C-alpha cells in the first residue's frame, strides 16, 4: 500500500510539473492536489513502517515546483495575440489581387451603386 501511494504520488507530481509548463497550466492544480494527498499518505505509511521518506520528500518538492509555476503563469500570463505580420501581408496582397478580380466580375443590376 505504501509503495502504491508513493508511485501514484510520483506520477501525479510529475504530471503536475509537465502541465504547469504547458499553456494548459490551469489543469496542473488537479494532479498537484492529488500528489499532495498521495505524498502525505505515503509519508505517514513510511513513518509507521519505519521506512525512509526520501521519495515522499521528492513528491512534495515536485508538487511545490508545479504549484509555483502554475501560480506564476496564472498571475502573469497575458492573452496576447502572437505575431501577425505575415497575416497582415497576406491580407494586403489578397486585397490587391481581389481588386483586379472584381474588375471582371458582372455586378447584378440591383447592386450597382446609385
Amino acid at each position, binding site marked *: 500500500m505504501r509503495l502504491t501511494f508513493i508511485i501514484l504520488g510520483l506520477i501525479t507530481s510529475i504530471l503536475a510539473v509537465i502541465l504547469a509548463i*504547458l*499553456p*494548459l497550466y*490551469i*489543469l496542473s492544480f488537479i494532479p498537484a492536489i492529488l500528489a499532495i494527498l498521495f505524498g502525505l499518505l505515503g509519508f505517514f505509511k513510511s513513518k509507521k513502517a519505519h521506512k525512509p521518506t526520501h521519495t515522499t520528500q521528492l513528491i512534495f518538492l515536485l508538487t511545490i515546483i508545479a504549484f509555483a509555476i502554475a501560480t506564476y503563469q496564472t498571475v502573469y*500570463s497575458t*492573452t*496576447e*495575440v*502572437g*505575431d*501577425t505580420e*505575415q*497575416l497582415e501581408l*497576406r*491580407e494586403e496582397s*489578397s*486585397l490587391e489581387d*481581389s*481588386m483586379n*478580380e*472584381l*474588375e471582371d*466580375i*458582372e*455586378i*447584378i443590376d*440591383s*447592386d*450597382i*451603386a446609385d
Partner: protein
Amino acid sequence: MQRLLIALLLLTSLSIEAQNNAFIAGEKLTFTASYNMSGLMTDLAQVTMETSEVKTSSATLLRLKGTATTYSKWDSFFKIRDLYESYVSPKTVTPYLYKREINEGGYYKYVKYNYNHKTRTVKSVLRKKSKNFESGFWDRNSTVTITAGTRDIMATLYQLRTLDIHKAPVGASDTFTVLFDNKETKFSFTMMGKETLNTALGKMQCYKLKLNVIGNDVLKGNSNFLWLSADQNKIPVFAKFKVAVGSGELRIKDVSGLKN
C-alpha cells in the same frame, strides 16, 4: 389610383426593410474564442470581423474580412492564422468574391469563389500544399452550380444581421444556403427569445438563436446557439457550439465603427 398609391407605399416600405441598416464600412468586431479542455474553458484565439469599402470601376462593394489568430502562448503548439474574405454588395449582401485561406498548425488550404449571379454559377479554386508539384501547391479548378440566394459563410453571417429579427416570434426559423467546400449546406436559425447577457461591453439584451446545420453533422447536439444584440446593429455577442472534438465559445471583446 388610391389602390395604386397604397401598393406603391407598401412596395417602398418592403424595399426599405430589405436594406442593410445593421452595418457599414469601418466596423470592427473583436471576439475571444475559447475551447473546452477537460471541463475548463481556455482562451485559445482572437477572432476579428471587419468591414471596409472597396471601389471597382462598376460598383462599390463591401469587404467583409474575418481573421482568427491564436494567442501567443498557443503558437508553439498549434498556430492558427486564418483569413476569410467576402466582397459583397453593401445593400443586399450579395457576394461576388470569396476567399478563405487557412493556416492551422501547418495545414494550409485556400479556397476562392468567383460568383456569377446571372448564370448562377461559382468558379471555384481549391489549393492545398503538395510535395508532388513543383510549385508546392495542388490546385483544383471547378464550376459549381448554385441556387438563388446561396452565400458563403461570411456573407451569411452579415446577411443574418440585416434581417428584421425583432419581428420574428419565438420558434420562428429561417434557412440559409451556404456554399462551403464547394457544397451547398443549409443552415437554419431558430428564434429562441430574448436574453440579457453580461458581456465585456456591459449588460446587453440579445436575441437568442439556435443554429442547426441540416444534413451535415459538423455541429453536434442541440446546444449550438448564437446571441445577437437586440438593437439595430444586431452584432454577434456570444456563440456556443459543439463539434466532434469538443465544445467552444465565442465572446465579444471589443467593438468599433458601429452604424447605429
